[in-house]
């Protein structure tokens, strides 16, 4: 480029202006997308809660408790009907997935048994790990109605009671890890 000479001043000013304009544009887009992003995440969360607890008439996302576990946060949403607790949805995570972290929403009955489990977000392999989702296979159905107090939440290969997804052992193990984490934290909270 035979244009601007590469003097120190020119380089300084150019880099400053380019980064300044970039920062400005990014700040603008961030503000514009902040609300849609917040709404999308809230919608996903509410849909996940609805799919794992029985019918409720309160607003679980407003009755939220947090707990700091294993380097990240778990969220507990209480679902009530006619004033009685019908279930607790626990937003849990695992970082042992094949492609890193993924999040589950586990619904527990007041007595600690699992109602249902939904996948909130993940990056597992399509066709393999993503079979943990309800719409891809029946993998998650085996957890319904089980009480982790007497249902071993590890895959059969590791001596547990869970049938892993064929050729997706890592994802299956991570899934169990997330559910176990949710159950342990819930029990700890109840004990307090």
């Amino acid at each position, binding site marked *: 480029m035979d244009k601007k000479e590469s003097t120190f001043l020119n380089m300084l000013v150019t880099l400053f202006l380019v980064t300044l304009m970039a920062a400005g544009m990014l700040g603008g887009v*961030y503000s514009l997308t902040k609300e849609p992003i917040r709404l999308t995440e809230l919608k996903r969360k509410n849909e996940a809660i609805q799919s794992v607890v029985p019918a409720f008439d309160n607003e679980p996302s407003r009755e939220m408790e947090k707990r700091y576990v294993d380097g990240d946060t778990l969220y507990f949403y209480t679902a009530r009907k006619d004033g009685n607790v019908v279930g607790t949805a626990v937003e849990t995570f695992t970082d042992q997935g094949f492609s890193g972290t993924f999040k589950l929403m586990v619904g527990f009955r007041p007595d600690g048994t699992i109602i249902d489990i939904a996948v909130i977000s993940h*990056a597992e392999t399509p066709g*393999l790990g993503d079979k943990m989702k309800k719409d891809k296979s029946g993998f998650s159905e085996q957890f319904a109605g089980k009480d982790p107090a007497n249902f071993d939440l590890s895959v059969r290969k590791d001596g547990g009671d869970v049938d892993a997804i064929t050729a997706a052992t890592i994802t299956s193990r991570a899934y169990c890890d997330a559910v176990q984490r949710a159950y342990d934290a819930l029990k700890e909270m109840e004990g307090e």
Partner: protein
Amino acid sequence: MNQWKNFSKGFIRENAVFTLFLGLCPTLGVTTTAVNGLGMGIATTFVLVMSNLVVSLIKNLIPNKVRIPCFIVIIASFVTVVELVMKGYAPVLFDALGIFIPLIVVNCLVLGRAEAFASKNTIWSSLVDGMGMGLGFTMALTVLGAVREILGSGAFFGLKMISGEAMLLFILPPGAFIALGYLILLANILKEKTT
């Protein structure tokens, strides 16, 4: 410049994936389904077109010695825009593409076109180049994604076509290389036929 030739070169003659072999990391990494390939291709095309446009606009104002940092800042900014927009309006695709979205910044295709073309050509030519290369990249990724999805999951754009298992290998890394290899062979045959 013949703008038609400029545009169409991105599809076979100078296709990023089949001829230039640029941007192979996301190519191999996200194409486990056709939809993922298509989504990544569109995101990359947006970044490519916008960065080519901006680089060409300010090409006379950037001192030579700082051109690479300037290009990277510009590219990274547009990638962040794509990331934010996807997060808010296409969360399913955002989750599926995951870590590969920020990796568009280091997609050699984007920096390569900025350096080799946009910094040396008119704004209009750079725009056309960005569109052509980007759409060619999108086509390559969608085709590869479709092939791997059909062979590896027995599905096409999410629609399952067979009952039971398909050839799992194709949705795993080795299958990506194998499928890509055969597609390059096909592209080479096509190139010889048209020259």
